[in-house]
């Protein structure tokens, strides 16, 4: 198991877990969110091939109403 | 973007059509607007605006007092050199003229400067012809440095320079640049400038901009009225000033209305401008560019200058000699670049200005170098 930080919260995840797997665990549609891994934006096409490592910091953001 | 490119964004055909098709009521309406667009400015130059000159004059006077107070800044020109390689048909100093060529030595420059400063004048305009063998930029820098202690402001009216050379002039003490396009009409420009570097229309057109980029504090532009149809010339000169004001907010933009008269030696003015037309140009400039300084030189006769003063003028030349030197050494230095029509002394001009309820101003800008020196002496 590995420890990663997702949107500021500690999460324990299996090894070799991809970002796409994490998104579907969270019931998030990948086409509606933007993912930043250790301050680097991950292109959507790479989400299913990018695996998470111990200590990674992940930010998942989405659009909402704003002025 | 350069001004040359900016000019292309106007449809000239359409502009000149608009000039002819407006009516005086439209012009009258413009006088109630808080600020005018280039299209409005065009209408002020129309034949229809002739019927509205008096209301235009009232508004112009009011605007000028609002932005400048009742002040008229006085300056004097000093010709440093009449060597010139350009052949400009209208100029008495052009390369083809058989005249005595003179260039002041640095000592003579200082002597002339002292003589002028003794009259109370603190704004000096330095002029030369274009000749890389004579009035070089190094020579001009030296002249500026020599004169700097005696004057609050030194201006240049010389051939065009590069941005780096303008910066060099500023370093040496130049505070302002006067540079007339002569004519904005390319065709006329080509016909009037037969040879020499000045033949390059676009180089001259973009030079004011280079001076702005170099950090020149004031730029004075204009057309030499009489060389081409005046409505079009005035329009482009106004648009040029407007463009520079917008593009270079740190530079003070001023505009002049020099008018060429037929010379003794056979140059016939192609498109003469009457007094009334000159007034219309002056009023249109003032209404369109409320913050721009406007200069009337001693090319104009005394009586006319007195009448133009309250219509938007902020700057006047005075005690002008258009020979090389001429203040200290007398008139021995040969021929004039153009005839001076208002030969009144500084004292007489000051008196006239006061009589009209205005204040003659000898300096409106402190030369810090001089201030420091005086301070140090105490």
């Amino acid at each position: 198991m590995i420890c990663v930080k997702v949107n500021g919260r500690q999460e324990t995840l299996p090894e070799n877990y991809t970002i796409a797997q994490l998104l579907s665990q969270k019931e998030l549609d990948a086409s509606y969110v933007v993912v930043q891994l250790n301050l680097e934006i991950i292109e959507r096409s790479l989400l299913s091939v990018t695996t998470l490592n111990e200590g990674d910091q992940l930010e998942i953001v989405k659009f909402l109403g704003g002025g | 973007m350069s001004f040359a490119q900016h000019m292309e964004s106007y449809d000239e055909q359409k502009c000149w059509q608009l000039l002819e098709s407006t009516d005086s009521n439209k012009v009258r309406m413009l006088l109630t607007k808080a600020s005018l667009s280039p299209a409005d400015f065009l209408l002020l130059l129309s034949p229809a605006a002739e019927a509205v000159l008096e209301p235009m004059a009232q508004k112009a006077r009011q605007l000028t007092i609002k932005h400048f107070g009742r002040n008229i800044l006085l300056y004097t020109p000093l010709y440093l050199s009449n060597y010139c390689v350009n052949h400009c048909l209208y100029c008495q100093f052009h390369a083809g003229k058989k005249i005595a060529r003179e260039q002041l030595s640095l000592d003579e420059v200082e002597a002339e400067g002292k003589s002028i400063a003794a009259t109370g004048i603190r704004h000096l305009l330095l002029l030369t012809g274009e000749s890389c063998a004579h009035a070089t930029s190094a020579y001009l820098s030296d002249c500026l440095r020599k004169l700097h202690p005696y004057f609050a402001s030194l201006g240049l009216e010389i051939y065009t320079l590069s941005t780096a050379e303008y910066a060099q002039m500023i370093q040496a003490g130049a505070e302002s640049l006067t540079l007339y396009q002569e004519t904005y009409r390319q065709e006329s420009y080509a016909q009037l400038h037969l040879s020499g570097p000045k033949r390059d229309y676009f180089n001259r057109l973009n030079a004011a901009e280079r001076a702005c980029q170099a950090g020149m504090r004031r730029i004075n532009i204009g057309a030499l009225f009489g060389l081409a149809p005046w409505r079009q010339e005035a329009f482009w000169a106004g648009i040029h000033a407007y463009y520079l004001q917008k593009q270079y907010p740190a530079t003070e933009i001023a505009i002049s209305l020099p008018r060429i008269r037929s010379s003794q030696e056979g140059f016939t003015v192609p498109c003469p401008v009457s007094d009334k037309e000159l007034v219309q140009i002056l009023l249109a400039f003032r209404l369109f560019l409320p913050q721009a300084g406007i200069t009337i030189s001693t090319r104009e006769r005394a009586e006319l200058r007195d009448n133009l003063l309250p219509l938007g003028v902020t700057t006047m030349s005075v005690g002008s000699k258009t020979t090389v030197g001429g203040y200290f050494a007398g008139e021995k230095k040969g021929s004039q670049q153009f005839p001076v029509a208002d030969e009144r002394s500084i004292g007489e001009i000051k008196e006239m200005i006061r009589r009209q309820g205005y204040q003659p101003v000898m300096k409106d800008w402190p030369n810090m170098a001089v201030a420091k020196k005086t301070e140090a002496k105490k």
Partner: protein
Amino acid sequence: MGKDLLAIGNSLIASRLFLGTGKIPLPKMKQVIEAAGTQVVTVALRRVDFDRRDENILDFIPDGTIIMPNTSGARTAAEAIRLAHLARAGGCGDWVKIEVIPDQKYLLPDNFETLKATEQLVKDGFTVLPYMSPDLVVAKSLEAAGAAAVMPLGAPIGTNRGLKMKELINIIIEECHVPVIVDAGIGRPSHAAEAMEMGASAVLLNTAIATADDSVAMALAFRLAVESGRIAYLAGMGGETGYARASSPLTGFLD
């Protein structure tokens, strides 16, 4: 009258009413946007909250609408730049409204950081529309940095107080070549009309529509006000200030 289109970046826009989507209930979103005739809407970017199951706002915005993410939440240029890049990765194009607000009491923007962010994001290929306090020098600097428009505030965000900054905005409209969009403070249709009469290129508003009892009707009211103000501006309004006639003529010498 020919088509009066507003050019921003590579787009030509017919509607001069830009709409913020904050506080508008999602089910009403489409109706409000259509009633306003809006072609440009702003959205914000936030961390996903795993404890809530929100619907996706993009599903409620009609196709063809230009989406302009803002950088709200940013307190520095660096944060705004990061948010802008995240937003672009969200796949809604390259427009961004820069909003850098360190002041949490009045929500006034930091013009200096806004300028820094603008310089960088223009280099990064964004169509940048900075929100700013109306200041001519800053507006000209933003323009020189390559901003696609400048968006001075009419009054502090959300106050509905109208064009309190009118004089300063007027100067920016006079002097800037890029479109000037009045953003924030517009509370009533008459405020929007006033901004357009002055020569603003567009207005951006949110609260006034979002918090109306009937947002759809209010959206329509603003649409009409913006159109009316624009038409009046184009028609060329007569000025109000007369000028005094001096007793003696100034041009008598010409006769």
